[in-house]
């Protein structure tokens, strides 16, 4: 069996063509290609331009016969969702931190307090239990020496833009429809 026919078989399996039908089509195609070769011809004599694109040819044939099954599950969407959720959470956290920094008084001490409160301080939202982590003194010192409001504003803008891009790229219904069309596979040849 030629590499062309094997590639066709792989494509038919991917498209959910039943094994019996796929094997029958492969046998017919192999016999025709062997006959053409025995007569001194080439695969192009049998297949025309399709001899250079086995996957497209196989898909067109299977679709024309109406033997394609439901599309095989694509692992990519689940992978994309995990990445999208992870990025969304990270950007949302960044936005929250930036908002905290902006909402308090400008100045280092307030920011330091805000960060400290978020990390270990009292209240319903904190990363560590009280007393578990002590903020090192140099952190306060560093915050104290800089006005972080412009940085916080920049981070907030970046986070919001990032969330917007994620919403468009991953959750847009229009793009979802396009992905679904792509997953459904090729259409019938234009002349059929």
């Amino acid at each position, binding site marked *: 069996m030629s590499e062309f026919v094997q590639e066709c078989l792989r494509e038919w399996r991917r498209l959910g063509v039943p094994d019996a039908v796929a094997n029958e089509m492969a046998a*017919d195609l192999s016999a025709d290609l062997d006959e053409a070769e025995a007569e001194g011809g080439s695969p192009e004599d*049998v297949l*025309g331009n399709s001899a250079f694109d086995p996957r497209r*040819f196989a898909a067109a*044939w299977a679709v*024309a*016969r109406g033997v394609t099954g439901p599309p095989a599950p694509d692992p990519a969407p689940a992978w994309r969702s995990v990445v999208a959720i992870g990025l969304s959470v990270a950007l949302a956290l960044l936005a929250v931190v930036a908002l905290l920094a902006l909402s308090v008084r400008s100045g280092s001490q307030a920011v330091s307090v805000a960060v400290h409160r978020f990390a270990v301080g009292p209240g319903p939202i904190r990363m560590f239990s009280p007393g578990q982590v002590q903020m090192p003194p140099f952190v306060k010192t560093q915050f104290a020496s800089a006005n972080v409001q412009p940085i916080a504003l920049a981070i907030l803008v970046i986070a919001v833009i990032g969330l917007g891009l994620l919403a468009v790229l991953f959750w847009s219904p229009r793009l979802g429809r396009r992905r679904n069309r792509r997953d459904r596979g090729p259409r019938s040849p234009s*002349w*059929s």
Partner: protein
Amino acid sequence: MGDGPAYGYEMTKRLGGRGLSIVGEGSIYPLLGRLERDGLVQTHRAASNGGPPRKYYSLSAAGQMALEAGVKEWQVTRDAVDGVLGLVATEVVP
């Protein structure tokens, strides 16, 4: 197919012999597949000349009716086009 049952490559050769090299458009297999799906051809397996069993295609009753209707439609279209081109030729040639 009106000349008798034929398998895929055999039909390609028949068409090529009559000046219809449709294989360049994407091969005859999808076309035969669509005809089979629509019930316009019937198939059977038979041994070829010393080779493996082949799938032979022939016209079904519905395919024969579709062929006749298509031929009539083609003739009407061809006559209409010939009529128009004849008028053009009359006007162009003194």
